[in-house]
């Protein structure tokens, strides 16, 4: 019914494996991970966990953005602004107000990284009280909009670890239905004690490099990252004769409705999300060339996701890998960074390895790609699942 095709004309990323798209690609192709002990802040769990941390201080990030000294940017906002500005530059947008442009960002804990430092003393001085308003989940989105000059439609999504995939999905729908001409979509999340301790109490953090889809996986590595895509309508692409990096071809959102934090045994939510995405893309399962799986490396997720994949693809599960052993699990940003990796896969006709894999999960008997492999790719599917049963799938296709 809705004919507008949605093109991706720019992307930006900061993650533990690089501060630009090019750096991220280089790390992926060299199988170089970004997992290490945490250094940016002190935590009692220093020796128990490894994380995907961006090795820049807040002061360095603020200097890069040329912020005034008394700014109240949380790390979440700093990372988000840097990645979003890269995306806009890559899409060669000169005057952002020329087309109806929206911004849909996502985050899990917003400015929690600053809240947890100032919570008990917000009113001791101005240096603390300025971080009250940066706590709100909307804060990083508004700061990104200010940096980019977006004055109209902006909003923020928070569906835990599937957030950014839902931002990409909504942006696509708004262009497809002609509501907007261009939408900047993605997510940002900084490491915080709040999330580290939360996942620690759930006993799903690995004390070593995570091993997605491995029989002996011990849990996940948390990460921090931000990534944004520029989605544009056919009309803008044609008018500017713009380079199309890839298209958003399909999307699906479903709820597992099983448990607040655990995935169901039959992967129902994941199954429904993938099924819907294939339907929207109007393609058959066998047309999927590569899957960037959610693959957090927790015992529960990988088994449930694997079962859902087998329900969709039968015994012929396409080539797949989880890139979380490179970046760690960047929560709300995960769907966007893996969106960038899926697009890089299509652009370079290459699949990235699932690091640290040794033995297949006995119940599944499926083996991910473990090294860099070149192959013709037309359709890449990317999964993102989160607490609350929120499951989302995106399908990207090759650009022109």
């Amino acid at each position, binding site marked *: 019914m809705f004919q507008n095709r949605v093109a991706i004309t720019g992307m930006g990323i900061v993650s533990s494996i690089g501060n630009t798209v090019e750096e991220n690609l280089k790390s992926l192709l060299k199988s170089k991970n970004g997992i290490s002990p945490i250094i940016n802040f002190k935590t*009692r769990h220093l020796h128990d966990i490894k994380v995907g941390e961006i090795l820049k201080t807040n002061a360095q990030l603020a200097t890069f953005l040329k912020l005034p000294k008394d700014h109240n940017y949380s790390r979440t906002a700093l990372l988000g602004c840097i990645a979003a500005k890269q995306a806009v530059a890559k899409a060669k947008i000169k005057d952002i107000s020329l087309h109806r442009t929206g911004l849909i960002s996502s985050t899990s804990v917003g400015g929690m990284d600053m809240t947890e430092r100032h919570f008990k003393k917000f009113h001791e001085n101005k240096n603390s009280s300025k971080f009250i308003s940066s706590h709100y989940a909307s804060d990083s989105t508004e700061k990104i909009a200010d940096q980019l000059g977006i004055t109209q439609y902006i909003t923020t999504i928070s569906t835990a670890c599937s957030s950014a995939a839902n931002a990409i999905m909504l942006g696509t729908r708004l262009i497809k239905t002609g509501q907007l001409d261009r939408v900047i979509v993605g997510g940002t999340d900084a490491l915080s004690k709040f999330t580290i301790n939360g996942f*620690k*109490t759930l006993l799903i953090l690995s004390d070593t490099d995570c091993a997605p889809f491995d029989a002996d996986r011990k849990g996940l590595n948390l990460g921090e990252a931000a990534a944004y895509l520029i989605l544009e309508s056919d009309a803008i692409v044609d008018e500017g004769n713009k380079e199309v990096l890839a298209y958003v071809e399909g999307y699906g959102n479903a*709820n597992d409705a099983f448990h607040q934090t655990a995935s169901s045994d039959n992967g129902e939510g994941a199954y429904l999300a993938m099924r819907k995405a294939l339907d929207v893309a109007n393609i058959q399962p066998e047309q999927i060339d590569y899957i960037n799986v959610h693959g957090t490396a927790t015992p529960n997720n990988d088994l449930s996701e694997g079962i859902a994949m087998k329900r969709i693809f039968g015994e012929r599960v396409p080539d797949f890998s989880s890139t979380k052993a490179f970046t760690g699990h960047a929560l709300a940003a995960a769907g966007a960074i893996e969106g960038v990796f899926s697009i890089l896969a299509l652009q370079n006709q290459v699949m990235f390895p699932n690091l640290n894999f040794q033995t297949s999960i006995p119940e599944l008997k499926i083996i991910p790609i473990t090294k860099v492999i070149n192959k013709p790719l037309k359709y890449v599917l990317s999964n993102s699942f989160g607490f609350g049963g929120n499951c989302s799938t995106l399908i990207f296709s090759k650009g022109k």
Partner: protein
Amino acid sequence: MKACFINGVASISAQATFNQSCFLEDVIVHNSKTINAIHPNYKDFINPITGRRMATGVKMGIAASKLALDSAQLACPDAIITGTGMGCIEDSEKFLNSIIENDEQYLTPTSFINSTHNTVAAQIALTLDCKGYNVSYVHGSVSFESALYDAQLLLHENEASNVLVGAVDELGNQFIQDIVISEENQSQAILTPFGEGAHFFTISSSRQDGSYCELKAIQIINIATPDSIQENLKEFLNQNRLLLSDVDVIVLGCNGDEFDCYYHNLQRLLFDTIPQIHYKHLCGEFFTASAFGFWVATNILKKQYIPNSVKLNNVEKSRYKNVLLYNQFKGRQHSFTLLTSC
């Protein structure tokens, strides 16, 4: 976009709104700095054992969603979309305090699990066994409007026939005190108390006997000046093929702070001859307070009656067809919502 009918509504607020037969006839005047919602008996909606672990927002959300579905005689929607400004602040505070006070030791996962912004939508999905589309919006004062806009889009795309849309914010204990202090330090502070509430609506592609009204359009605007908002408003009406004179009621999110100038301009310059309505003095200010305003508007259209407690002027009309809502917070997060009788 395609027609969207509001078929079920529910409100839990600092007024006795949970009783569907009342419409702000007898209101409570609140004078404290923060006001809690008047809570229904949650045992009627939630298993008491499960309920013990649930924070205020989750309980309010489950009860209000059930009432909204019942009022539309709907068992399970095709999609659940929620908005919340502060999210599950009670559990967030609880977990944050344990981390700080116990130096990252002796923590239990329950409050962390329940602290995520999508907890309410997830718990409703679990309660209803609803596996459909499920998203939570967290953009301050346009969190509810973002959810509503998504619901309208889903109906337009034929992806759903019935969508449950809701907004929840709970007061919490600590963070709100910091907000109150920081507000008091402003030159012209918010005069209404800070509040909490849950508002749920069923939005459907087909009209039914008990339909409240039709949702015509929503627009979200990040930044505007008190002058430029007038142009935005005229453009919004124009896109919906309406003239200023077609608007029968204007519902405004006034809270007494310096940013009320945005409302005053519209009241004085564009809408001085029609009924003007405010509501935050009744429900308090919170990020999803505009959903209370939306609840008021849906009731005005269904009942064709404006309660005295919400009137900003003495203008009355014999018939109310088009109701326009406008809300903003601190000069940002502007939204227009247009409802029409059906």
